[in-house]
């Protein structure tokens, strides 16, 4: 058994990260909108002395009309080249993240909807499929800007191979 941190973004949207990737959880902060940024990643959060990107999981999944979470999960990720220091970033969630236990038997295919772009594996928790995010893919790669959250991503679904690692 291993442990992961489950991030619930509201409704049917949930994902997970490693315990080592969470830095802290905030309930608010100074937000600066970024003009012309994608709907699901269009804010900078003032955290300590830095401005960090905010990824809205609910909007990414269901489009700009989705309700954004009130909690801000501050996470650390590394760029492709590794880097000496993890870069801080933020994921909006609707509830305080919680630790879940995961076993190999819980592995399952990624759900449809473009998750393979930002997730590396998936497990079942309480009957729900929970993708495990690759934070590098979430923050260190550009994502197409869509008016309807996932429209462009759905066009790619047929070409992607979903499945457990």
């Amino acid at each position, binding site marked *: 058994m291993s442990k992961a941190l489950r991030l619930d973004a509201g409704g049917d949207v949930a994902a997970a990260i490693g315990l080592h990737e969470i830095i802290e959880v905030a309930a608010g902060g100074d937000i*600066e*909108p970024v*003009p012309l940024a994608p709907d699901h990643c269009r804010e*900078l959060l003032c955290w300590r002395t830095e401005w960090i*990107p905010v*990824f809205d999981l609910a909007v990414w999944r269901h489009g700009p009309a989705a309700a954004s979470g009130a909690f801000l999960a501050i996470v650390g990720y590394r760029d492709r080249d590794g880097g000496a220091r993890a870069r801080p970033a933020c994921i909006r969630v609707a509830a305080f993240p919680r630790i879940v236990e995961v076993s190999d038997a819980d592995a399952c295919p990624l759900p449809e909807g473009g998750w393979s772009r930002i997730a590396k594996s998936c497990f079942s928790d309480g009957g729900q499929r929970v993708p495990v995010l690759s934070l590098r893919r979430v923050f*260190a790669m*550009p994502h197409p800007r869509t008016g309807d959250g996932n429209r462009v991503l759905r066009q790619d679904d047929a070409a992607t191979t979903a499945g457990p690692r």
Partner: protein
Amino acid sequence: MLSKIPIDGSPAASGFLLAAFDGFSALFAQRDVSVIEQRSVLANPRDCYAEYCKGDLSVRVFSLSKGFAPLAPADRPFFFVARCRAGAFGLACDELQVVNASRVSIKAIPASLKCGESPIEGYAQFGKRVAFLCSLEAIADLLPLTDTGVVDHEQSIAA
């Protein structure tokens, strides 16, 4: 800290212009700016621009929305004229100041916030305020600099 830069030539400035638009602040390389003026000298107001004419220089002056769409200068008190390969144009704003390059630390926009059509190349922090470093070339692509879309090369920088 408003600074007026004469048209007829000064040593190329190495700082930045910090401009406040409708709901956001932008940084521009000062070397690309040739004129800073007050709105009162603008003429011939149109739907999304007004005109600035002085000597041989005749350019359209716009303001910018949050999505970088062109707006009429309206009541914005200041404007500056920028020159780029696409042509010369003006941008009207609510606040305008020259910032020394030593005061500015530009950070790259995270990849997840990037969008192909965006003129934003980076950002800098000024106290609690964030200003976005913008490409004037990319902004020029979003503006109707002429009625026909043909660039007036006499008013653009030689490549």
